[in-house]
């Protein structure tokens, strides 16, 4: 058994899990955070993407014990309170989801992607960067639109904040 201590969505949590327990199973079964999904078991589909210490990680590829001491953000912790995160809002506005199963991983990937491209995104980059996430419902058309829109919204928000600070 391994002792696992993490900060998840701003809360310190700890528990004991079988050594072979993957981070995704620790989140889902020990912490009840079932928003993170398992779609393929082989790190191909990206339904399990969470942020570990600020980076997008496939949580089915990491042991819970490996993540001990890290700060983890899951889909449940992406927005602060009642307001949706701009990426969540864009997925809704642009119909970027249908069955919803891949959606948490898509949104966590998109959030990371936008953060890594503060200069902005274009369609080809979004499509290339989505290589690790599979969606069977949408044909990606509206997911791409949603990510481009969220990227713009967040860039405007960042500029607004920079102006305020100045």
């Amino acid at each position, binding site marked *: 058994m391994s002792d696992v201590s993490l900060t998840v969505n701003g809360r310190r949590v700890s528990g004991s899990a079988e050594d072979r327990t993957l981070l995704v199973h620790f989140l889902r079964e020990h912490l009840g955070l079932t928003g993170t999904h398992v779609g393929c078991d082989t790190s191909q589909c990206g339904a399990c993407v969470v942020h570990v210490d600020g980076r997008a990680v496939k949580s089915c590829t990491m042991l819970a014990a490996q993540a001990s001491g890290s700060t983890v953000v899951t889909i449940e912790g992406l927005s602060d309170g009642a307001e949706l995160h701009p990426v969540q809002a864009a997925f809704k506005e642009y119909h970027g989801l249908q*069955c919803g199963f891949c959606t948490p991983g898509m949104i966590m990937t998109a959030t990371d992607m936008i953060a890594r491209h503060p200069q902005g995104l274009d369609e080809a980059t979004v499509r290339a960067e989505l290589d690790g*996430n599979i969606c069977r419902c949408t044909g990606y058309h509206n997911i791409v639109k949603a990510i481009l829109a969220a990227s713009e919204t967040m860039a405007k928000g960042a500029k607004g904040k920079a102006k305020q600070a100045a």
Partner: protein
Amino acid sequence: MGIEGVGARVARKEDKRFITGGGRYVDDMVVPGMKHAVFVRSPHAHAQIKKIDVKKAQAMPGVIGVLTGKELKADGIGNLICGWMIHSKDGTPMKMGAWSPLAVDKVRYVGDAVVIVVADSKGQARDAAEAVEITYKELKAVVDATKAIQPGAPQVHAEADNNLIFDWELGDGKATDAAIKSAAHVTRMKIVNNRLVPNAMEPRAALGHYDKAEDHYTCWTTSQNPHLARLVMSAFYNVAPENKLRVIAPDVGGGFGSKIYIYPEEIVCLWASKKTGVPVKWVADRTESFLSDAHGRDHVSTVEMAFDKENRITALKVDTIANLGAYMSLFSSCVPTYLYATLLSGQYNIPAIHANVRTVYTNTAPVDAYRGAGRPEATYVLERMMETAARELGVSPAELRRRNFITSFPHQTPVIMAYDAGDYNASLDAAMKAADYAGFTKRRADAAKQGKLRGIGMSCYIEACGLAPSSAVGSLGAGVGLWESAEVRVNAVGTIEVLTGSHSHGQGHETTFAQLVTQRFGVPIDSVSIVHGDTDKVQMGMGTYGSRSGAVGISAVAKALDKVEAKAKKIAAHLLEADEGDIVIENGEVKVAGTDKSLPWFQVALASYTAHNLPAGMEPGLKETAFYDPSNFTFPAGCYICEVEIDPETGLTEIIQFVAADDFGNIINPMIVEGQVHGGIAQGVGQALLEGAHYDANGQLLTASYMDYTMPRADDLPSFQVSTSNTPCPGNPLGIKGCGEAGAIGSPPAVINAITDALGVVDIAMPATPATVWATIRATKH
């Protein structure tokens, strides 16, 4: 159209939970005392089970039960069924071999379930499953349907000689042969429709809970039709009578047909829960899904299409061999027959059609409906034939299609269907305009200067949706009726719940169904809730597949709304002392037309429940139920155009543009409809370029993970240009035709027509991967 009513692009009500991690799928369910199951599956495609030894496994840590097919049979659990009877042309019924939920004497495909292990944790169950010792005697396997019907091939079931399940025909064989004989031109092709794995992103799962105190079962399952699951599990599998079995299909992560069927696992989990005394949860891993989900397509057809001197089609003759896998899945028999051969007239006037279909057992996973179900196979046959014929006849593909379009309605085809409405020229025109078809020659020349091969292909599809008139399908062998139900409950405060037998697993019913209610009564969309997926809450219903929820499910809601409206008007007329015929309901008010007399909607609802002042003899309450049985199929149709550019050095195909012009009849939410088309096209492009399920000669599935089976990813696809030009469907109250499958039906031939155009070849096998394209280019050069 209001901002939330019919025709509006309303953002989905259900999205909030999905984008915040609040969706509730079967794997998210936790029941006190719940344990975990793992299935031991056959590693062989064909073998006799000589011995099963579970002793070691039973002694493993955390193990609660290790159960076999013998015990299951001893408890009277029944075999799986196929719910649609097909008779061969000699009058004999289809030859169905037994399918036990856990194999007893013989296994027939890799993945056949043999033993269930229940343990405290999934890891422990997995460890114990590895300790189950099964002695097999391997038998020769057959995976190719065309080989399975040859004399001397391995026999999958004793019941079906030469593995032939049925040999069925539709249409006039003599007239067809005569027309071919006297034709000015005959186009002939062998057409293969590749085997696919549906791959909903949520793997199948089941949680069975037997409550001893109540002698009652609950099953949470990844189902597109929970009521049908309850009916079949009660009536055929003897799990429990319907009143003691509740089936819940909560949020379901995509289906595409693969979650229509009642599989062995949910039956076994329910039975194992009673047997072990604990709730039992099973969740497939992805490889298990590849092995055991029903696959799709897998047809081989020999086709002849005859033309007269004016390039008018005079006959179509199709001989198809359809691989149904190792067992007959729930609707497997109707897919290559009544959902396939009945659509072989396409959008065209064809005086004589004959289809012969042989269905065959092989040592592969069962094959059943996958998005489109028979209709993609029919469209692929027809639209590949039209393309090839146009090239042979030296006319443009568009011109050949136009010359043969059906232009007057209703139109009776020679293969059962009576098309009610459509405008095929309109969708062809719209697609050609959107694709700048006229500018293609220049684009091709420009690409050639860069050393690239450009091609363009079109596909004019039709499908039959709105499944289906119950008496019609009953006469054709269906074991069920295909109506739908709805209950509309107006609460005392005026909020509304709609209980529907349709099931949403991505289609957005919680929004579109609510839009209809908002349109009728002018109440805010937030005051309308759609309830589905639970047999304890919702009256019997038939579920969601075959693009039926718009045309049939919403029609049932409309019918129930009619009844509610009629009663509300009676109450209002009584309260306002007006004539019932003068009452109108709009913008949340119930008014007397042409006066300033009105009541807020909620006051009428409240009056119905207080019942202090109702018309004489009226029952209290405002709640109505309706069952809607369609009078005909609906016929969505459209035209798809694909333009590709191929790099001859690598064989890589890039889709430059993909245009869809569809006719779906009236539309409730265009945003959701477009999303359905996008997703369908992605699956169709996947079939054409990327996806293929491959077994080796021994029956081992070589494509059993996302490392081997190529799913379409974002950078494999372009943005799509979609539009609609709609002729309302005359057959249902809202004029809806259905839109869920069109994309997957219309797109594969458009892509392959474009690739063969670019390469200058007659045919190329799907999936046209870079390796296949590259090899084709090399073969053509030499």
